[in-house]
Each structure stands twice: as C-alpha cells, then as structure tokens.
C-alpha cells in the first residue's frame, strides 16, 4: 500500500515535468494555431545540452538551467523564422509538415552525431525517505524547478506588458495588429518561449532518466496527451494535466509493464479528444480573466 502511495507521489513529481513540456506546446498552439512537431527534438536538445555542459564542460548540473533556457529560446526564434513564419495563417497541414520536416533534420543530425546510444547525466541529490521508500532528490528538485518556472511564466504572461501583448495576439491576431502590436515579433517570442520550456523540460528529464537521441518521440507524445487533457492553449491546464498524467503513470507502473505505458496514454488521448475536446478544465466552470 505504501508502495502504491509512493509510486503515486513520484508520479506527481515526474508529471509536473511533463506538464512543463506540455506548456511549451500549448503556448505555441494557443498563440499561433501551430502544432510544433519539433517539440520532441527540442526536448532531446535540452537533454544533450545538459549532458555536454555537465559532463564534458564540468558545470554543476543545475547551473546549466539558465544556459539551456536561453539556448533553447534562441533556437526557438530561429525555428520560427525558418519553418513557421511563412506558413502562419495557412491550413494546419502546412505548419504540421514544415515543423515535421525540421524535426527530421534535427533527428537526422542527432543520430549522425550521437547514434542511438543510451546517455546518462550524473545528477545526484540527497533523497527524501518515506518508510522503506526513498524519493530521488532529482525528482523533487525537478518538480520544484518546474513550479518556479511555471510561476515565472505566469507572472510574465499576466503582469508584464509584453505578456499582455502575447495574450492579445493569442486572442485575436488581426485586432492586435490594428492596435499596433508587432504580431510577427510576438509570434516569434511565443515560439521561442515554447521552445525554451521544451528545452528545460528535456534538461530536467535528463537528470531523472537515461535517454537516447530518439527519446523525443515518446516525450512529445506525452506532451500532446497532456496538452489535450489540459485543453489546447491553456498553460495552467497543461501543468495540472501533466500532474494528472504522472498520477496515471504512477498508478499503472506497479501493475503494467513499462512498454505498455505509451499505449495506455494514447488510448487516454483519443478518449479525451472524443469525450472532452476542451480538456479536463471543461469539467469545472471557467474563471473569467
């Protein structure tokens, strides 16, 4: 019983990081109606960045966070101007295909450089014991950092002028343009932020689990599941849904082989899309903001 409880609590910690990754997808989706299929690659880029910085350059693992954040943000800006800017406002097929093709390039480069070997980041923190079970310190740290980043993002979106511009463009791009908001720059900024969230999520995942160049697909799928659970375009919902998905994983891991997790999550994804297309937040009354 205590084992199940511990598994659930650990699921919540890991789920918070899934939520962080999904906030990146949902932010980009909400602001520009683009599903970012480079998301998985950005997560992997975050993983390898921390591997390179902490492993080869010898920085403390958590000191790499700001570097990963800024690097992924800049990568996101570049990706926006390369692959997304020209297809804004076109049918969704086009942005899907363009981000998909950039993803191929990134995966191809990654496999050419690192092949598909398993990598590890040497992160160790003192854990927290509950009876016979010990929560790894890295999981606690990841969840704590997620909470901090989510809080900063909230303050940015709701307490700053630029954040207000992002929300305005998200609400109605043409109207935002009419009142003098430089929408292209705002879209690029939002894409960069989404990419930064993906990169940091990848960095935090790398401190918890081993990874390969191809790990991105699984985490990207999880991010989609979480995004849909939380309602597309809703960052708070994404964070909560991430925790919910972590709970589901915590609940299933003691009973089901790990390789089945993705199948279960996919079934969940389709069920939610069919039954509750607005996400779990539909279940409670909407707060006006």
């Amino acid at each position, binding site marked *: 019983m205590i084992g199940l409880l511990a598994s659930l609590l650990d699921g919540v910690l890991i789920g918070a990081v899934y939520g962080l990754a999904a906030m990146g997808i949902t932010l980009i989706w909400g602001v520009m109606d683009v599903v970012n299929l480079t998301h998985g690659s950005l997560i992997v880029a975050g993983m390898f960045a921390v591997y390179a910085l902490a492993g080869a350059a010898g920085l403390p693992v958590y000191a790499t966070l700001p570097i990963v954040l800024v690097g992924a943000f800049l990568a996101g800006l570049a990706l926006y101007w390369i692959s997304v800017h020209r297809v804004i406002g076109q049918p*969704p097929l086009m942005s899907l295909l*363009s981000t998909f093709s950039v993803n191929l390039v990134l995966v*191809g480069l990654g496999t050419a450089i690192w092949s598909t070997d398993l990598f590890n980041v040497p992160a160790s923190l003192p854990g927290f014991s509950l009876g016979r079970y010990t929560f790894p310190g890295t999981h606690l740290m990841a969840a704590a950092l997620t909470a901090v980043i989510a809080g900063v993002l909230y303050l940015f979106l709701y307490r700053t002028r630029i954040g207000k511009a992002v929300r305005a463009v998200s609400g109605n791009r043409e109207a935002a343009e009419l009142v003098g908001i430089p929408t292209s720059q705002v879209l690029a900024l939002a894409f960069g932020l989404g990419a930064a969230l993906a990169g940091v999520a990848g960095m935090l995942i790398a401190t918890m689990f081993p990874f390969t160049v191809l790990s991105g697909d699984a985490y990207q799928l999880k991010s989609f599941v979480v995004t849909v659970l939380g309602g597309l375009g809703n960052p708070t919902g994404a964070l909560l849904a991430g925790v919910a998905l972590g709970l589901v994983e915590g609940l299933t891991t003691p009973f089901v082989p790990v*390789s089945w997790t993705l199948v279960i999550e996919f079934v969940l994804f*389709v069920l939610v899309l*069919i039954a509750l297309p607005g996400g779990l937040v539909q279940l409670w009354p909407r707060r006006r903001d």
Partner: protein
Amino acid sequence: MARRPFFWIIAAVVALFAALPALGNDIELRESLLLAAIYVTLASNINMMLGYAGYVNFGSIVFFGLGGYLCVWLMGSHGWPLAAALAAGGVAVSALALVFGLGILRLRGVYFALATIGVNEGVMAFVSTFQPWGGSSGIYLSPALFQPLGGPARALWIIYYLLVAVMAASLYLSYAVKRSKFGLGLLAIGQNEDAAAVLGVPAPRYKAMVYSLSAFLPAIAGGLYFFKSAFIQPPDAFDLQLSTETIVIAMLGGQGTVVGPAIGAFLYEQLRGWLLTSESFSHFQLVISGVLLLAIVLFAPGGLMGWLYRRWPRLRGILE
C-alpha cells in the same frame, strides 16, 4: 475509361516495370524497381488522405508493417499459403484501420494528425511487447516456405510481379477514387470541411472510409516485402525513415494528383541512389529528406505536378 489518355499512361508504365528486368534477367534493376513499386504504392495511398482529403497521416507505415507481420505470422506459424495470408493481412489491416478510423473520425485537422502519431506509437509499443509475434526480436521464416513457389529464385520474381500488380492497383484505385462521387466528397473536405458538411458530404464517414481504403494495398505490399526478406522485426516494420519518405514523395510529386506520387517516387529513388553511393551523405538521409520536404512545403506546396500545371495548363486534360 479506356478512352482517356491517362489510362494508357498507367498501362505503359506498368508494362515497362514488368518487362524491363525480365528482358535482361537483370536482378539489380529488379531490386531497384521493386523498391520503387513499394514507394509508389505507399505514396499513392497516403496521397488519398493527404492530397484529396487534406489530412496528414503520420502513421501510414503502420499499415505496411502490420500487413507484413500478419502475412509472415500466418505463413510461418499457421502454414497458410501466400495468397491467403496476403489477402487476410490486407483485409484485417483495413478492418483495423476502419475501427481506428471510427475511433478518431470525429477528430478534425490537427487533432486527427496527432491521433495518427499516437496510432503509430501505440501499435509499435503493442507489437514490441506482443509475444506471439516474437516481441522485439521478431519472426523468422523458414526458407522452405519458398518451395511452393518453385524455389527462392523463382519466388523472388513472383514477388516482384505481384508488387508491380499492387502498384498498378494503387494507381488505378487512386484514379478511380478521384473520379468517383466519394473522391469528389474527399476533395471538398480538403477544401473546406465545414462547407462540405453543410452541402451533405458525410465527412466523418468519408474520412474513416478513406483511412481504411488507404490501408489495404500498403498492407499487402508489406506482406510481400517481409515475405521476401523472410524476417520481420519492429524497427524494420515500422521504419520512421520509410514513413517519412512516403510523405516526402507524395509532396514532391504533387499532392492530390494521381501521377504525382509515381513521379515523386521515381525522382526520389534516383536521388536516394545517388545519395547512398556518395559516402558523405549516407548518414544524412533523414536530414536530406527533411530539407527537401521543408523546401517543398515552403516554396512549392503543389509539388512537381503543381509546377507543370502552372507552366502548361493544358496538361490538366491529359494527366490526372
């Protein structure tokens, strides 16, 4: 049908495919054309989703892989003859696609595309853990299974001709669908799904139907392909590379046209042969597919056929 020039173009291409390697008994040419036939089959089937209905299916390789698995498994573990195993594989995968399609038919646009990624991951995870199919180590076929076809050498020729037939059937199917009321409905969905629905196109049903239809021939091609290699394993059956190449080919030739995917397959096969032989590029196949696809999406979304049609509008009356 037989009066339209287009029908004769297809017939001539297929005759060429059938005759070329047989004339000189050229094994190398046959292998290269066999791959081209698979490309054409996969690309023209994905084109019915992508080009006609405007729905991108990132998981089309699932049909190919599952068809391969069913065929190999029925022949290896249950002693079915090739024809029966192929037919059963095609029908079963098509039926499964219909079930998936009915499950995800209510999803539109992007949601549908995301669901197809999920189908891909879900099926792969399922097959890698499914013990009757050997889990992650796959299934091997005994060489004795080639005996009923007259020995391995003759069996390979038979498989080649069957694949050419599957390719011809794909082109014909793609043409027949485009000419039909069903195809018109799909094209309308591709233009504007809401308007199509208002005008009485049963969009969800049509989407599920085309999803299932586009599964049938790739499943048979998969069966033939993996029977030929006498071995199947999850990474080969659900190869990301092949799945992407299919989309690249359909876009390169021109989505929504019948000949586009065929021309795209030919061009891509040439390009690929050239890339494989040059040492420095062979590691970067995914990168090159990606750059190519990005360039097409951004600068020439109509593909080669779109360009030809703009250049010579009269071609529209001859080609499809």
